[in-house]
């Protein structure tokens, strides 16, 4: 009978797996839950859209913003329209 060799996983891989696994809490999209909030996603409403940007003006990914794919696309589209109209920056050190 051959002995089963247990390979030692490197610390780097362990860290990567735990980071990827993350929290298993089921996060629901706030726009799917409350349909009326969808109308606040508007390129004119830059104060609301600012909460979906990082400090440097980058759009937050949906795994952090908690939005579902459909609403993440809406948010991204409105942010890009807002950027064209100079209501939100494209990038910056902080704003």
């Amino acid at each position, binding site marked *: 009978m051959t002995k089963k060799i247990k390979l030692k996983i490197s610390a780097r891989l362990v860290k990567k797996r735990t980071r990827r696994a993350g929290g298993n809490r089921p996060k629901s999209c706030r726009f799917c839950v409350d349909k009326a909030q969808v109308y606040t996603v508007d390129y004119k409403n830059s104060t609301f859209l600012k909460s979906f940007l990082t400090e440097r003006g980058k759009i937050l990914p949906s795994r952090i913003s908690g939005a579902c794919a459909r609403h993440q696309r809406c948010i991204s589209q409105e942010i890009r329209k807002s950027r*064209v109209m100079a209501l939100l920056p494209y990038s910056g050190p902080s704003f």
Partner: protein
Amino acid sequence: MTQKYEALLLTIPEITGDEAKDLEMQLDKVVRGAKGATVSFERWGKYKLAYDVKKNEYGVYYLMRFDVDKGTNLINDLKTYINVKLSTIVMRDMISVLDPKAPSTYQRPRSLEEAPTREEGFQRESRGSDFFLSADNGNDSDED
């Protein structure tokens, strides 16, 4: 079938009241030429822009809402009119279709002309003064 549209215009900060009225009349003329009707023409006010547009740090926004029948070429005509005839005044424009189910009210950022709530903002801005106040209260002065 009437379709609702809105156009957000970003103009130069030095725009005068007369120029704004002219702008409104000219755009209204274009809309009426396509048998549409202007619903509203609002001045948002002067804003500090997120980045310099045509070397201007500030700009004045105008929001125009209008209804027109589907099938007309109004949107393209309006865009060419703004980009060609009004290029000296209007720096940016964004024409979009309005969802008929969406409410007509909208939220917009606060302009420079609107009075800010100074009490709250003031406290947060002057973090440095808090630090110095606490140093004085602790009697840690190095004065001779």
